[in-house]
């Protein structure tokens, strides 16, 4: 692995995005617009906005980075650029690291904007520091990047890869505690929710919502999300083959 090649890859991915300002715009402003929408949905119930809003700040980065990465890496696979890169002195870790870095930068921008709007304009009432929200959002984005990279190996077309979103992301949203507390679910589902990483992202956001400092539970949640991201990134690396049939 080489820092120069990882950075070059990250810069290349960001340059590609820069030629696509609409994607950047959508990426940055859709979460903000959805938060504003949610704010008025809970017009009469600001407490619900606080808890659901905080959870959404944890869910957005994962969903968007999942979509962006899965399609970007699918394009690398189908356009021949991946085959070419892997015939060159590029370590798989350089490629994955470059993607993670580029999308991490994007995720920080996205999460910073969404969090700032939520806290300052929509009066999202959190006890803890907004910085802690950002940290979780970043790790979440990495998890989304990792999942996207991984599933792109199992899709042969953009049509297929988009279908992985309801398959991989929706169940996590349903089971993460956004709609019902995880403890009140049918026990099998509760068990399932305990092994899905998004549950911990949302738990972490909830910790920040209710506690002024960073709690032990917060760090546990952080560690689970980061660990899951690393695990899936490693699985994703295994799907990059220098030799293919």
């Amino acid at each position, binding site marked *: 692995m*080489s820092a*120069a*090649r990882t950075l*070059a*890859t990250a*810069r*290349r991915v960001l*340059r*590609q995005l820069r*030629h*696509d300002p609409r994607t950047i715009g959508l990426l940055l402003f859709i979460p903000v617009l959805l938060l504003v929408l949610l704010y008025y949905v809970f017009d009469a119930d600001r407490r619900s906005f606080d808890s659901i809003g905080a959870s959404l700040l944890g869910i957005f980065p994962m969903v968007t980075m999942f979509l962006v990465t899965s399609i970007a890496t699918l394009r690398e696979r189908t*356009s*021949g*650029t991946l*085959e*070419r*890169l*892997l*015939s*060159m*002195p*590029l370590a798989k870790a*350089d490629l994955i690291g470059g993607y993670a870095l580029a999308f991490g930068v994007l995720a920080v921008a996205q999460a910073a904007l969404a969090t700032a709007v939520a806290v300052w304009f929509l009066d999202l009432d959190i006890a803890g520091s907004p910085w802690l929200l950002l940290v979780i959002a970043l790790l979440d984005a990495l998890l989304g990047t990792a999942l996207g990279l991984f599933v792109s190996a199992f899709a042969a077309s953009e049509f297929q890869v988009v279908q992985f979103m309801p398959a991989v992301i929706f169940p996590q949203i349903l089971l993460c505690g956004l709609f019902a507390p995880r403890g009140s679910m049918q026990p099998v589902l509760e068990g399932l929710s305990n092994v899905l990483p998004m549950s911990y992202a949302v738990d972490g956001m909830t910790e920040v919502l209710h506690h002024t400092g960073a709690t032990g539970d917060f760090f546990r949640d952080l560690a689970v999300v980061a660990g899951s991201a690393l695990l899936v990134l490693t699985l994703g690396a295994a799907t990059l*083959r*220098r*030799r*293919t*049939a």
Partner: protein
Amino acid sequence: MIPRVTNNSRAPDPGPDPDSTPGTDRDAAADRTPPTPAAPPADPTRGTASDAAPAVHARALTVVRGRRTVLDALSFDVAPGTVTGLLGPSGSGKSTLIRAVVGTQAKVTGTLDVLGHPAGAPPLRSRVGYVTQDPSVYTDLTARQNLDYYAAVLGIPRRDRPAAVDRALTDVDLTDHADDLAGNLSGGQRSRVSLAVALLGTPELLVLDEPTVGLDPVLRRDLWHLFHRLAARGTTLLISSHVMDEADRCEQLLLVREGTLLAAGSPDALRARTGTRTVEDAFLALVETARPASAPHTGEAPA
């Protein structure tokens, strides 16, 4: 004994009009009679004469995909510093052979050494340039940005990159379109960006999969001149094509059909051996004399 390509008799015909070439600022075109000894001295695998180690050395090279044998026991050598054409109809296994040489093909058995290493070995990744059949460039980057990124991947130091990129763009005559998005270029221009990527690290072996398909005749001629200039610098080129009339632009030929090697040798030798006037006729004659299974495909069976 197997067909070999290791003789150093070079084809006399570099193609018409050696003076109208892209990138005329470097290397006078196509004087190929004395092989250029300008290769990096540190590399023992890089030679110029027939006694030098072959750039590609294949023995009983076989590739199986699913239940199909795509390449069946191919044996050949590619002499360093030559332009070797890999000719055959589409579906004959050319791309698979090229991917095997580059090291991206799975399930390769037999011997396949490239520049003295097993094909695909890590030291080869910066010494072998590879151009895929479809241009493998990022359509949402400019030509220059594409080259800049690949140059970084090849390990060219940051300060040397602009010069290396400019040189590659000049070689493929794309300096006018350097800052156009690759996606906005014509098909032929895009495949030249793809070719320029392969020229970046001044590779010792260039492997090109159908680089001239779909290009207009002028451009095709210019590219062949470029290939010969590269060979004159000491680069070995292995170029696939399904267009038989490109055969005479190569010094050596590997004729493949249905995953087997029909014959290897210079265009003249192939014509002489088969008593035909064109390589296309030679190909047909070889197909007709080829015996199924046991007998050698060339029909001449050197023992």
